[in-house]
């Protein structure tokens, strides 16, 4: 808590927290957008979302070890995760589409444990970092410094996000995805192969997470157990923004990034994740209480 007085003495630090928070928030928003896509189209909450991010991070890390520059590694990681997510859909996920939400949560929870333990066995539990080789930018006589890699991550997240947006809006399969999200039965009647739409959606989500994972590896580190925090962050962003609300996802992602940076600074890093999850519970309870007055509940 002593850092609170530091913040009061030097309010300029707040600028750093906000800028840095908004920059990393874009990565969170990217993962959350993937979750919202799967949730909205397939009615599945993918608990393995964070594990996809983790695997994307490892892909970029090992590609960098083989001499591929990280920014080039990101599209390759995305492609690899596209294939993996497609395979997962064909093996497991297509069996739980349309089933009870509890089944899908528990099944994807199982997948998340499977991937996380597989990563632990194959890549070991060591924390891996990827030197970005980018300088930090300093302003105001070095009082504010923003890591260059965060800016790169922010720009890359924006590029991936806009590409996705255009894809959903203008391609044939993108329109089919949106039609299925609106009304799967009507889409089927109109001749859309919904199974293929689901497979594409899930694979697309894998690719988004793979790209985000590369950015995570560049900005922070990769480690087999980092998945669950990303899953819950995404869930929180989607709950705050609502399904199918892209601007909302970006705003909520940035807000979460800023809050997290601030909490990490004020409370200390050991309470940072606890703070995120407490915020998640508070958000759910708060939203639910608002609906409660109208005899409704979150659904």
């Amino acid at each position, binding site marked *: 808590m002593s850092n609170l007085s530091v913040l009061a003495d030097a309010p300029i630090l707040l600028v750093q927290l906000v800028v840095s928070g908004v920059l990393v928030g874009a990565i969170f928003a990217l993962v959350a957008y993937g979750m919202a896509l799967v949730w909205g189209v397939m009615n599945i909450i993918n608990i393995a979302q964070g594990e996809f991010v983790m695997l994307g991070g490892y892909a970029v890390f090992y590609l960098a070890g083989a001499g591929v520059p990280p920014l080039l590694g990101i599209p390759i990681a995305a492609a690899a995760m596209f294939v993996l997510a497609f395979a997962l859909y064909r093996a497991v996920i297509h*069996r739980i589409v349309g089933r009870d939400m509890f089944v899908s949560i*528990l099944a994807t*929870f199982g997948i998340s444990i*499977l991937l996380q333990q597989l990563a632990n066995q194959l890549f070991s539990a060591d924390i891996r970092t990827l030197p970005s080789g980018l300088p930090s930018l300093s302003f105001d006589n070095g009082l504010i410094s923003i890591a260059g890699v965060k800016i790169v991550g922010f720009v890359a997240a924006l590029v991936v996000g806009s590409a996705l947006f255009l894809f959903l809006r203008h391609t044939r399969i993108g329109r089919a995805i949106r039609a299925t999200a609106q009304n799967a039965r009507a889409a089927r009647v109109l001749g859309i192969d919904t199974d293929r739409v689901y497979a594409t959606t899930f694979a697309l989500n894998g690719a988004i997470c793979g790209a985000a994972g590369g950015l995570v590896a560049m900005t922070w580190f990769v480690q087999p157990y980092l998945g669950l925090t990303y899953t819950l962050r995404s869930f929180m962003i989607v709950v705050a923004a609502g399904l199918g609300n892209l601007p909302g996802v970006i705003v909520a992602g940035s807000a979460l990034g800023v809050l997290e940076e601030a909490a990490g600074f004020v409370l200390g890093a*050991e309470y940072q994740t606890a703070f995120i999850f407490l915020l998640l*519970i508070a958000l759910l*309870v708060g939203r639910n209480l608002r609906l409660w007055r109208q005899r409704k509940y979150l659904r």
Partner: protein
Amino acid sequence: MDMAVLAGIGALGLVAPWAAPSIVTQLAFLWLMILFAVTWDVNGGQMGYNSFGNVFFFGIGVYICALIQRDSGLSYYPALFVGTALGALGAAIAALALGPAILGIRGHYFAIATLGLSIVAADVASAWEYIGAASGLTLPLFPGAIGNRNRFFYYLLFALAAITFLAARALYRTRLGLAMNAIRDNEDKAEAMGVHTTRTKVFAWCVSAFFLGAAGGPVGNLVGFVDPRDLAFAGATFGVWMVLMAVLGGKGTLWGPVIGAVIFHVTQELFWTYLLGWQRVAMGLLIVVIVVFFPTGVVGWLLRLHGPRKRRRSTTVATSAP
């Protein structure tokens, strides 16, 4: 027939440590698993509130008992029993305090909120110096022979699991049990029919929490060391296992969780023995297979096997929540 089965299991539980003294600890954990599955099913299966964070209450029990043993100055046995009782009470009070807010959330939002709850607890417990932070707490040594120690905790957990099962069985036979089932089947209609839904939900959660909290003290002492993430708030193991065991046996049935816990525990011990290093990977695979292919569990499968005639007479299996 029911009484005969209960008496048979009770007799088996009493003689087991003498019949198989080398695996007393594993058998004690078997009773713990049964307790986990039964308490989860009280709100997950019977009431349709699928909590992923019930391990939270277990952790509260572990820590309260460990702190009483460390700080109260009582000698071993009084401290253990006072700690266990206070652990149970503390967990129930936590459920009572959090229940009205959290149980207002439904469906998957409830599942994720409770998951968050158990992770917050794990994070706070591993950062809070007073309760040992990440290095955990070491519990006092048992004042007796090693063999007696394991047998003592075996009987303690056996008694707790038996009491939990009988309490759940009694609860399901009351009006309150019916009210819980009504909430599972359609909460809005249940409320319209005059069921005090919030009160019922909070009560059922308190029952779960009470027995989970009571199990905390003995388990902490049996292991001898309290680790915030691997024992007390072990969301990735105990937290998921309790859900899985109930689903495996058949959630929403009286015997399902017990059967599921036994099958699961035996499988898990085999995994740990024969799949060096890969046991957790196999566990993840097992979860996916069980959930995707056997969502109604063993009891649901047996009921289906015996056709619709018998199904009508026995407890219905919850295949899907509304």
